[in-house]
């Protein structure tokens, strides 16, 4: 059965709504060595990328998921009857960025970074499950600590937090902007 490993993986990812993680695959396919699964996944990603299919296989939020290619956005939106996709507001994005780069972080810390109260944005982000509460800080008042979620990664097409630009890369970006 393992000589069909690429096809098996394809089938499993196809029926998965959430990105299918290598851990989960290893659980489902205990007989397949993880290296073989990893290699087969890479080959699948490449095969879809090279094909002229409308679908691609994308490593997302630590797992693998099928998605449409960008040029098929208009017909898909017509099918789903979605005029425009909801986007995050400037404040929500600022708050989210502060959480992403300073996590785990408290509301007061975010407010200090942004210079404005961020409770409303935090609430919105929590509602949309882009951030989550991970506990309380051992500090006066034991304030709640926030972190970004897997959904945050998926929303921005990131595979891991490491995919976000590093401090140096950001510095370069800022210099370009100022120049």
């Amino acid at each position, binding site marked *: 059965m393992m000589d069909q490993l690429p096809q098996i993986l394809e089938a499993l990812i196809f029926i998965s*709504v*959430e990105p299918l993680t290598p851990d989960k695959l290893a659980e489902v396919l205990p007989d397949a060595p993880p290296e073989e699964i990893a290699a087969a996944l890479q080959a699948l990603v490449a095969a879809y990328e090279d094909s002229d299919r409308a679908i691609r296989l*994308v490593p*997302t939020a630590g797992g693998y*998921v*099928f*998605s*449409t290619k*960008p*040029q098929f*956005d208009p017909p*898909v939106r017509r099918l*789903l009857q979605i005029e425009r*996709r*909801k*986007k*995050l507001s*400037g*404040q929500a*994005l*600022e708050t*989210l*960025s502060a959480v*992403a*780069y300073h996590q785990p972080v*408290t509301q*007061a810390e975010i*407010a*200090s*970074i*942004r*210079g*404005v*109260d*961020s*409770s*409303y*944005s935090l*609430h919105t982000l*929590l*509602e*949309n*499950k882009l*951030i*989550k*509460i991970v506990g309380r800080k051992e*500090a006066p*008042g034991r*304030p709640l600590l926030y972190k970004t979620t897997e959904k945050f990664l*998926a*929303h*921005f*097409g*990131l595979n891991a937090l490491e995919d*976000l*630009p590093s*401090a140096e890369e*950001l510095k370069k970006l*800022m210099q370009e*902007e100022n120049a």
Partner: protein
Amino acid sequence: MADEIDPDVPSAEAESAPPDAAAPESEAASTPHAVTENAPEAPAAFPQPADIGYQIKLGMFEGPLDLLLFLIKKKKIDIQDIPIAVITGEYLEYLNAKEKINLDREAEFLLMAALLIYIKSQILLPREQPVEPDIDPRKELVDRLQDYQQIKAVVGVLREREEEQAQIWRRAALTAPLPEQDLDLIEVSLFDLAESFFAMMKRKQGENLQIIQGKKLSMGDKMSEIVAVLKVRDHIDFLEYLGSHDSLEEALLAFFCLLELLKARVVVAIQEQLFHTIKVWLRKDAPPEKEQE
């Protein structure tokens, strides 16, 4: 808002806190209590949208840091060497341009004004003895501005990525990418707790389950047993024999076996009178046992 006087705020924040010192000469002077008025709101978990107003009221600025960065860029100022007097003047001009200050929405802008004036006073005022001469009173503000600048750069990156992702569809997206109404995450973490609790209970239940080993019964064995009994006892009382089994299943099996043996003409069953018990004999001319199995 008013986080800078919130006792919960980490120490770095507390240093920039003395708006009171600067208040007498600042725009905030007319309403020095404004900041404290808002303080009780801050610790509340999720107060009403206090920061939503900025986008409408102060146009393009997300907050005082945003405005400051804008002024610094406009004046082509080196962020590491901000002429505080110039920038404070510019900043206050912006605030003065407003006819009325909405305290709910603009308290943070006032707080920043107070901080700027405080830093200015730190630089101007002669000191009796130089306290920590190495420390530039502007340093903390510069650090904050740079941190904020970084956040703004991240916002740019995220916005771009969001734009890209908006054209890509996954199957999950069919169930609304950013649902309007969703479960509160605070509750979800409670659900998580409940879920793991139930999972644990389930495991516990599994532990308490005891498997009762059923007797393994087969027709062949039973038939041989019946034949063996008949060989020893000459005949058996049908009802008595069935009653001697300790489970219904086994008794039923014995009954079927007797029927089978009758059919195979190994035994003979005779009821001497109506309503009398049925007696079972081994047939004298019975075929060898093996054949029925």
